[in-house]
């Protein structure tokens, strides 16, 4: 068990800044995901926590102890690169024992740990089996077992599910989350996949170009993205953005969008130019002539549980999630109604979220610094 604090971490490779003055507090027992596109600095941050890279400046503390320049072995942290690398020629028990024998633990301790891990993962009955004969799900559990048997203070995972197919990855996410509920070991998990992040994380740090743009719980990231990048990176289909036709001032409760007026949560900030953001699931199709904006259905896709409609309005192209019992058709003329409370506004120049009546009540679920 450990809390991890990184402060003003900075890392350059030649003249490329991989991590820029980043600070983050990872509380004991939390599952924290670093999320961002490739090259954003998430893996470099993880490697610095592991001790595989040293920062140019800044510090990392583990339970209050400065470990910034300690070697990996001196940190008692387990790095999990690929959950699924098992030795196929060895049995289940040997696969689990391997990391412990490497550490030179005495036999009774090894036996105790194996027993404990096997019971947590419900694989006691498989200890005598060979890896080759195992079903997919059992293999996953054995691989997980090998990662947790060392009982480190923290797990660091670098895209461990990256090579799995979609279905398997979802199953594995559930397994990982269940395991975390039992062990409550501080975990830092790096991924570019927002679904994994949202499914697993207690807290998420969204990174881009070496910077942590937002650190919050999944709810905060999804509902109150700190900037346009976070807003467009999270959510599928992505958030719709509409250009606001005027500057905005505190107290405004509606904004002009292409001549029409769209109700918004009472604005607390000022911006010369603003962008309105609304997620596809908060856009409702209503009868032509009603709603805030007029639009035409360009294309619909059926997903069983819902439709996704692509809509053309004078303010631009939007997407909406439509109930499965409705049947929108190409060419339909419709009105668009927005769920007012879920509209967010951004300053077009700084790209930052503008404070409003909805954001006022929100407390970030993670200490950013």
């Amino acid at each position, binding site marked *: 068990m450990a809390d991890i604090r990184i402060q003003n971490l900075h890392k350059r490779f030649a003249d490329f800044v991989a991590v820029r003055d980043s600070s983050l507090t990872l509380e004991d027992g939390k599952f924290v995901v670093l999320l961002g596109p490739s090259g954003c600095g998430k893996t470099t941050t993880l490697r610095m926590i592991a001790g595989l890279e040293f920062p140019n400046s800044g510090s990392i503390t583990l339970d209050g102890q400065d470990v910034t320049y300690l070697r990996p072995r001196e940190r008692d942290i387990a790095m999990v690169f690929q959950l699924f690398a098992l030795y196929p020629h060895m049995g289940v028990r040997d696969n689990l024992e391997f990391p412990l024998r490497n550490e030179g633990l005495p036999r009774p301790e090894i036996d105790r740990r194996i027993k404990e891990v096997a019971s947590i993962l419900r694989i006691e009955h498989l200890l005598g089996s060979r890896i080759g004969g195992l079903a997919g799900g059992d293999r996953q559990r054995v691989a997980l077992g090998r990662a947790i048997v060392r009982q480190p203070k923290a797990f660091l995972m670098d895209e461990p599910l990256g090579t799995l197919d979609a279905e398997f990855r979802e199953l594995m996410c559930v397994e990982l989350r269940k395991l975390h509920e039992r062990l409550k070991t501080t975990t830092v998990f790096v991924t570019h996949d927002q679904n994994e992040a949202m499914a697993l994380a207690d807290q998420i740090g969204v990174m881009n170009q070496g910077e942590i743009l937002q650190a919050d719980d999944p*709810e905060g990231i999804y509902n109150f993205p700190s900037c346009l990048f976070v807003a467009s990176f999270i959510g599928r289909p992505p958030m719709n953005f509409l250009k606001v036709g005027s500057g905005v001032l505190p107290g405004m409760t509606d904004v002009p969008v292409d001549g029409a007026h769209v109700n918004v949560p009472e604005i607390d900030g000022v911006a010369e130019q603003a962008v309105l953001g609304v997620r596809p699931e908060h856009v409702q199709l209503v009868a032509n002539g009603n709603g805030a904006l007029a639009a035409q259905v360009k*294309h619909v*896709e059926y997903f069983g549980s819902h439709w996704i409609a692509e809509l053309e309005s004078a303010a631009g192209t939007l997407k909406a999630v439509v109930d499965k019992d409705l049947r929108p058709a190409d060419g339909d003329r419709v009105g668009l109604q927005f769920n007012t409370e879920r509209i967010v506004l951004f300053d077009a120049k700084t790209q930052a979220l503008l404070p409003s009546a909805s954001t006022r009540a929100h407390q970030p679920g993670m200490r950013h610094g």
Partner: protein
Amino acid sequence: MASITLQGITKTFGDVTAVRQMELAIGDGEFFVLLGPSGAGKTTTLRLIAGIEGPDHGRVLMNGDDVTNVAPAHRDCAFVFQQYSLYPHLTVFDNIAFPLRSPLRRTDPAEVKRRVREVAELLHIESKLERKATALSGGEMQRVAIGRALVREPRVFLMDEPLSSLDARLREELRVELKRVQQRSGATVVYVTHDQVEATTLADRIAILEAGAIQQVGTPQQIYREPDSLHVAQRLGSPAINVLPAEWFEGSCHPLAAHVAIRPEDVELSHGNGQASFQVIECSLVKHLVVAERAGVEVRSRRMFEHALAPGSAVRFHFPPQHCLFFDQSGRRLAAPH
């Protein structure tokens, strides 16, 4: 353009029956998807239509004519594979033009130019025509491969997982484009995939294939709403349909039912105390999904949450009877009780 009929087709490879007694009628201009796991016989079916394989029994008809013994070249089907096989030393233009310049066709150069341009515009690659095929991204290469099939104006397009080697974003983009191109050209497409999203978004009709046999044929909505078997019910829908023990539904359940299935978007959160309580495993605001467990059974509910439910907390569900599907021990669908 052509309709395709398969009559009593069986194809074996050694001891393995790849396709068993298949009956299928694909309409002219239809986007028809064969959906199933690997080994279900999808690709073999496609190869039988193309004439690359001959059936052990049965007949293949195109526009009503028996083509069972007609050579592939004369069936006039264009194939698009998962792995785009372009000629790396040729430009995009020459790759697309290639089928038109074959000795069988020998198209007039002005006509070649016109058709290549037309296809390139349709696929939004008109600015890439002078590039070498190797200088393209994966998505662009697959567009060129599709373009090379389109330019021939064949009677039928046969597509074998054409999008599966592309990343998610490109796949989404090309999916929309493929559907648009097919609608505009009116071509008959037989499309093989194991991806249910491709199936529901692209298909006019879907055939669910399993172990060489067709389980059900219908529009995406028919198959999603009215599956004939538990197996078919589990083939479509993401997250997958919930399969719950019949004991949970005592009194409100078909007497022969062994399983009750309900789609995640139909499972409601309940605030009453009457229902049993489940333990939350996962709650995702992005997927609008909560996964919870009771007695080893996982339940998924797809809802618009205002706030995420904490893992480990308790939640209650309501399973509206009008959305429940009942299946017997063998997985056959039972009529709803009244």
